[in-house]
């Protein structure tokens, strides 16, 4: 149904006049021109499209616009603050927590939302949390190390 949709996106208000059954992933990637969030499987099983909605990691390919009405949406483009990388982003660079980079936005957002809720997780807890996100290149060990380091530095405000 076409209606007015309003939400906060990376800290700024967004208003759209469009079909509220449209999928958040594609609205981000087309109307809103934020292509950092990726399509991977379209069925919520790979995590490449992960964004945070009110601080919780969700699969944007399984999220309608109606579901984010009035909410606070953060995408990978919203992690930098004042021109500085989030400690999590810096840790991914420092540990080489990516190869092709295609799953990276989803990995970052899943980890970012997780660290907000659980600032000092154990390694096992990180592994369990990240298990829902797929990486084909095999950067897993380094991604876990990056999240551990970011957690130690109080990453993800």
């Amino acid at each position, binding site marked *: 149904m076409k209606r007015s949709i309003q939400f906060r996106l990376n800290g700024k208000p967004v208003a759209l006049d469009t079909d509220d059954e449209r999928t958040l992933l594609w609205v981000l990637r087309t109307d809103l021109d934020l292509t950092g969030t990726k399509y991977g499987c379209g069925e919520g099983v790979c995590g490449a499209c992960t964004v945070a909605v009110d601080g919780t990691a969700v699969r944007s390919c399984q999220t309608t616009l109606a579901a984010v009405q009035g909410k606070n949406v953060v995408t990978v483009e919203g992690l930098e603050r004042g021109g500085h990388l989030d400690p999590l982003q810096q840790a991914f*660079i420092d540990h080489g927590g*990516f190869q092709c980079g*295609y799953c*990276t936005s989803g990995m970052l957002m899943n980890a970012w939302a997780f660290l907000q809720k659980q600032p000092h997780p154990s390694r096992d807890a990180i592994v369990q949390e990240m298990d829902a996100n797929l990486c*084909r290149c095999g950067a897993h060990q380094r991604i876990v190390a990056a999240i551990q380091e970011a957690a130690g530095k109080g990453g993800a405000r």
Partner: protein
Amino acid sequence: MRKHNANVDADDLHRAALFSNTRDGRGFTRRSFNKLLGGGIVVLITTKPATLFAQRRAYPEDLNAYLRIDENGRVTLFSGKIEMGQGVHTSLAQMAAEELGVSLDSMTMVMGDTDQCPWDQGTWGSQSTRMFGPAVRAAAAEARAVLMNLAAKKLGVAREKLVVENGVVSVAGDASRKVTYGELAKGKQIARLVDEKATLRMVKEFKVIGHSAKRLDGLEKVTGRAQYAGDIRRPGMLYARILRPPAHGATRKSLDTSKAKAMSGVTVVEKDDLVAVLHADPEAAGHALTLIKAEWDQPAAAFDTESVGDFFVKNGGEAEVRTTRGDVSSVTANVVRSTFRTGYLAHAPMEPHTAVAELKDGKMTVWAGTQTPFGARTRIAQTLAVDEKNVRVITPFVGGGFGGKSAVNQAVEAARLAQITGRPVMVAWTRGEEFFFDTFGPAAVVKIASAVDDQGKITSWDYQVYAAGDRSAEVLYDVPNVSVKSYLGRGGGARVHPFAVGPWRAPGAATNVFGRESQIDIMAAAAKIDPLEFRLRNASDARLRRVLKAAAEAFGWKAAPGPSGQGRAIAVGFDAGSYCALAAEVAVDRATGTIAVKRVVAAQDMGLVINPDGAKMQIEGCITMGLGYVLSEELNFKGGAIADRNFDTYELPRFAAVPHIETLLISNDDLAPQGGGEPAIVPMGAVIANAVFDATGVRMLRLPMTRERVLAAMKA
């Protein structure tokens, strides 16, 4: 001796040595230049860019095909290779930076753009560093020599008195007398050396090569700014969805597009085999596709997931003989016979095949996620019946390839639709399309009959491989009687398979090494000899022995014949010029059949290593990706109908499955750089199967070793 002409001042020389326009042949001719110089240090390039880029099947000799140095000192390296995660974006820059004498931060990479980069066959086979690397280093070394000559003139001192650091040339002992590369080159073409050959830096001089560098693509990739083909936006662009058959080999018997045509904003294309719907909104295009009605005839299935191996063996046809040494039929005592099987594998890159095509002023530009931009250009030009010069392929970052993006059908589809509609078009395969139109790694069978004498020496090796090809099919060990035969080539093409097959990371090698290194373990156990000791007893190859010993030592190997109950094993491969030994530890849950891989130690000899941390990332990636084909990945199908269409049933390794991985690079700087993207994935099947045997005494002969198969094997 080099002749300097006193009548030519530094500025004249400078002007003469550089062309007037960036990457453009206008300016001095060879004749005017030689007149100016009186026959001297450098000559101008007489080839025009058009001919410079027309060279095929070889890398250009002209350094200007690879390098440009801007006035601000930034160095751009042009590479026909592409970046798909393997890290050559960084390691190629390291090679150029080293030979030029500039910092790595001053490098910019332009990769896989057919209008800007030197021709390249494709990014595969772990070849970027070992094949393209030497061309980059030679070009950069030559540029450095030319720039040093120019600097010597400008500063009025002999070249031998100059030093270069971070792109600044200065007089040794007087840093105030200096000139930068940027001031010398000014973004123009650099003349070539005539009477000397540029020398490469020696290992002991290295400041960039051999030092771990953080990846240059890191910032873009952690901020979401890195662009992939699907992130390209063109004015007026339409998103296309294409009608697909329910099974490979199906033929369409009816088509009704009327409802799709009635939908607002939809363009329907029906041309020969191509039926597509296009819309400015990708979801709307997807909806329009569901409105198309089509009926199909499907051919009967010749075989399926379970019967494919028998089908290959029955239909193997004539063998290609790879090796014949001694006489395998002369050995009849203690012959051990084994048959190994592997399934079809999907590449399953996280980025599905995607391309954007735009026809503008008679030129088709295609942005494609591809491992073969130049091959894509050729195919697009042929399909559209246009000259190749009217097609440009640009390769943004590629979201994983593993061999699967050597095929470029999505780029051809986008170009066809752009030509038909006159609008920029994106074709982005869904995950379901990716799992259907992938060029799968072929299922295969390996049959081995081998024998060992009472001294623990292998006496005979009779090897037959079906459909995996003969990459890494060599016996590697010292065996007097050897026969290696390959049936159906690698894949055997359309005459055998119900769908497209193609190269899958180290094509066929993992299958061959799964067979070989399992059989070695089987013989070691039969001879009651520790599997490491058995390998060393039968191997004289120094590099092979070195990686085996290094992996075992780092692992903390405790010698014992198998099955020792430790759940540990070793396996080794030789691929893409590199040796890689893996030692692994597993735990097997006898109740569920679940294999937990706890630890993998890798020792790899890949010659000179350009970026040690980057090389380790590739080894870790190989081991992690390898877990998939070893434990869970196998494409389920019946004839041309593919059952696995997403990650819910085709299971990639996830975080909880990844073991602790330790990597060891064997120092071998005297050997030129060898392959790094594939070797470590090759021994994964055997090392895990051997570890399962060591833990349980049960021998797994088929990959993947699913829970069901492990349980069945333990009951047998």
